[in-house]
C-alpha cells in the first residue's frame, strides 16, 4: 500500500516537472525546424515566469497572469526577431544576450517593483486553477496547463508535419533560398517560429510561477530551457518524441525528490536530471554511429 502510494506520488511529481520542459521544447521544435539556433528559451521562460506573477498579482486574476506570461515571452521573442532576423545579428550572440537580459532584468525589476531580493511571494498572487479530471490518481487534478501542454503537443505534431505552414517552416530551415524563390519569405517563417517559441516559453514560465507554487524567485527557470534544447536535439524536433523525453526528465526530477526523502543530500539529488540528460546524450551518440 505504502509502496503504491509512493509510486503514485513519484509519477505525479514527474508529470508536474515534465510540463514546463515539454511546453518550452514544443515551441523550440518550431525554431528547430526553421533552423534557428534558439538558446534564448531559458531567458524567455524566465521573463514569462516574472510577468505572469506581475499580472496575477496586480490584477488578482490567474487569467491575466497567464496572458501576461505569454506576453512576456512574446516580447522577448520579438527582441530576438528584431536582432537575429531583422538586423542579422548572430543567433548565438542574440540568445545569450537575451538570457542575460532576462536574468538581470527580472532581478532588477523584482527589486524595483516589489523591493525584494531573491524571491517574491504574496497571497495576492492567484495560482492557475486545477482541473479535477477523471484521469486516475496520476493524471487527475493537475493545473490545467498540464492538459493544455498535452493538447498543444499533439497540435504541434500535426501543425508541423501536415499543414502548409509546417511545410513552409521546414522549407525555411532546409532550403531558405528556394522558399524565397517560391514567393514565401524565409525570414518571415523564421520570425514566426521564434514568436511561437516565445509564446510557449511564456506559458512554461507562467506554469513555473503560478502552477504548483505562487511565487517568483531569481533564476527560476534554472536550466529548464537548456534541458528543453537537449530534448529537441535528442528527438530531432519531433513533438511526440519530445513528450517522451520530457516525461523522462520529469521522472528523474521526481526521483531526485524521492531520494532526498531517503536521506541523500538535496544538493546531490538535484543534479539527477542534468546527469540523466548527459546520459541520454551519450545513448543518442551510440545510436548515431550505427
Amino acid at each position, binding site marked *: 500500500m505504502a509502496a503504491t502510494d509512493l509510486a503514485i506520488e513519484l509519477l505525479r511529481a514527474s508529470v508536474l516537472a515534465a510540463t514546463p520542459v515539454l511546453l518550452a521544447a514544443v515551441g523550440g521544435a518550431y525554431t528547430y525546424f526553421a533552423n534557428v539556433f534558439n538558446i534564448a528559451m531559458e531567458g524567455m521562460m524566465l521573463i514569462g515566469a516574472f510577468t505572469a506573477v506581475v499580472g496575477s498579482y496586480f490584477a488578482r486574476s490567474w487569467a491575466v497572469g497567464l496572458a501576461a506570461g505569454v506576453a512576456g515571452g512574446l516580447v522577448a521573442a520579438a527582441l530576438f526577431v528584431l*536582432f537575429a532576423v531583422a*538586423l*542579422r*545579428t*548572430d543567433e*548565438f*550572440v*542574440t540568445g*545569450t*544576450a*537575451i*538570457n*542575460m*537580459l532576462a*536574468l*538581470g*532584468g527580472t*532581478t*532588477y525589476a523584482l*527589486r*524595483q517593483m516589489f523591493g525584494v531580493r531573491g524571491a517574491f511571494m504574496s497571497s495576492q498572487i492567484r495560482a492557475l486553477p486545477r482541473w479535477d479530471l477523471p484521469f486516475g490518481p496520476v493524471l487527475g487534478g493537475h493545473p490545467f496547463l498540464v492538459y493544455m501542454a498535452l493538447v498543444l503537443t499533439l497540435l504541434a505534431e500535426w501543425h508541423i508535419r501536415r499543414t502548409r505552414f509546417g511545410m513552409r517552416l521546414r522549407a525555411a530551415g532546409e532550403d531558405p533560398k528556394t522558399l524565397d524563390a517560391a514567393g514565401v519569405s524565409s525570414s518571415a517563417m523564421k520570425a514566426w517560429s521564434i514568436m511561437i517559441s516565445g509564446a510557449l516559453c511564456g506559458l512554461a514560465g507562467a506554469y513555473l510561477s503560478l502552477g504548483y507554487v505562487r511565487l517568483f524567485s531569481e533564476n527560476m527557470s534554472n*536550466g529548464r530551457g*537548456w534541458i528543453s*534544447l*537537449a530534448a529537441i*536535439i535528442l528527438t530531432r524536433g519531433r513533438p511526440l518524441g519530445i513528450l517522451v523525453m520530457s516525461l523522462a526528465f520529469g521522472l528523474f526530477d521526481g526521483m531526485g525528490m524521492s531520494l532526498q526523502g531517503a536521506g541523500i*543530500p538535496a*544538493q*546531490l539529488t*538535484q*543534479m539527477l536530471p*542534468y*546527469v540523466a*540528460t*548527459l546520459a541520454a*546524450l*551519450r545513448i543518442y*551518440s*551510440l545510436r*548515431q*554511429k550505427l
Partner: protein
Amino acid sequence: MRKQHAVSAAAGVAVSLLAGLAILAIQGYPVWQSYAALFSYSLFSQFALVSTLNKASTLVLTGASAAVGFGSNCVNLGQPGQFLLGAMAATALGIFLDLPSWAMLPTVIVAAAVAGAVWSGLAAFMRLRWKMNEFITTLMLNFVADGVTLWLISGPMLDRKAYSPMTAMTNPGAWLGMWNGLSGAVAVAAAALAAVWVIWNRSKFGYECRVMGHNPGFAAAGGCGVARNFTWAMLLSGAIAGLAGGLMVTGGMQHRFVKGIGANYAWDGVMIAIVAGNSMSGTALYALFFAALQTGAMGMELETAVPSEFALVLQAIVVLFVVASRESTRLILAGLAAKLKARRAARMLEAPGEGGGRHGSGD
C-alpha cells in the same frame, strides 16, 4: 578594418548608455545624478578605481576563457562550473595543505587552473570520444559542479560556526597580498592575460585555433590537428576559468568558499568575449568597462536608489547593440561596395558605345 571595429563599438556603447538613460528616465529616477554616481563611484577616486580593478581581474579571466573557447570554435559555456571547481580546489588545498610559503600560493593557484581544466577536459573528452556536443554537455556539467560544491560546503566542508553554507577559512599562507586595497589577484590576472595573449596571437597553436574559429573546414584542409587543438583549446579555456575561481578565494576578502561565490562572473565573461569579438585586447577593455559598470552601480544605488542590478541590464543591452551595430555596419558597407561595383560594371558596359553592352555581356 580595425578602425571600423572601434567606431561601431563606440557607437554601440553610446547607444546602449542612452538606452539605459531612457530606462531610468521612464522609471522616474534622477537621470544625470544617477549616471554621475555610476562613473564617480567606479573611476574617480582611489577607492573606486581599486574596486573596479579588483572586479576586472576576475572578469578579464572569465572573458579570456570564453574568448579562447569561442575563438577556436569550441562552444565552452562551462565557465560557471569550471570557475566553481577552481575555487573549490583552491579552498580545499588552502585548508588542508600546509606548505612553506614560497610553494603554497603557486601550488594552490595552479591547482585551481588544473581543476577548471579537468572539468572542461571532461566535456572535450565527451565530444571527441562520444560525439556529444560540448555546448550542451558544458551547460549540464555546470549544474553538476554547482550541486557538488554546494553539497561540499553544506556538508563535509561546512564551517560549523557559520550561519550559511560556507567552508572554513584557508591558511594565511594561501592568501595573496593587498596593496592599498588593490588585490594581488590583479597582478596574477594581468600576468595570465599577457601569457594568453602571447599564446593566442604569437604561437602556432594560437594561430591554428584562430583559423579553426574563422573557418573550421579550411583549418582541417590546411593540416591543423583539429582534434588535438580542440582538446588543448578546451583545456586552456577551462584552466583560465578555474584560475579566475581560484583567485576569488586566494585574492578576495573572504578566503573561503561561500555559497554563491561565482555570482555572475562566468556569464559576464561570456558576454565580454562576445562583445570583444574574441580578441584578447578587446576582452581586457570590456572587462574594465563591465567592472566599472558593476562597481559604479553599487554607488548609484547608494546615491539615487536605483537597484544595482541595473548594471546587468545595461551589460546585456551593450552586448546587443555593439554586436548588432558591428554586423550592420559590415552589411551596409558590403551593400555599398556591391552597389559601387555594379555601377562601375554598368559604366563599363555603356562605354564601348551603343549596343556594345548587349552583345559583350560574356563576363
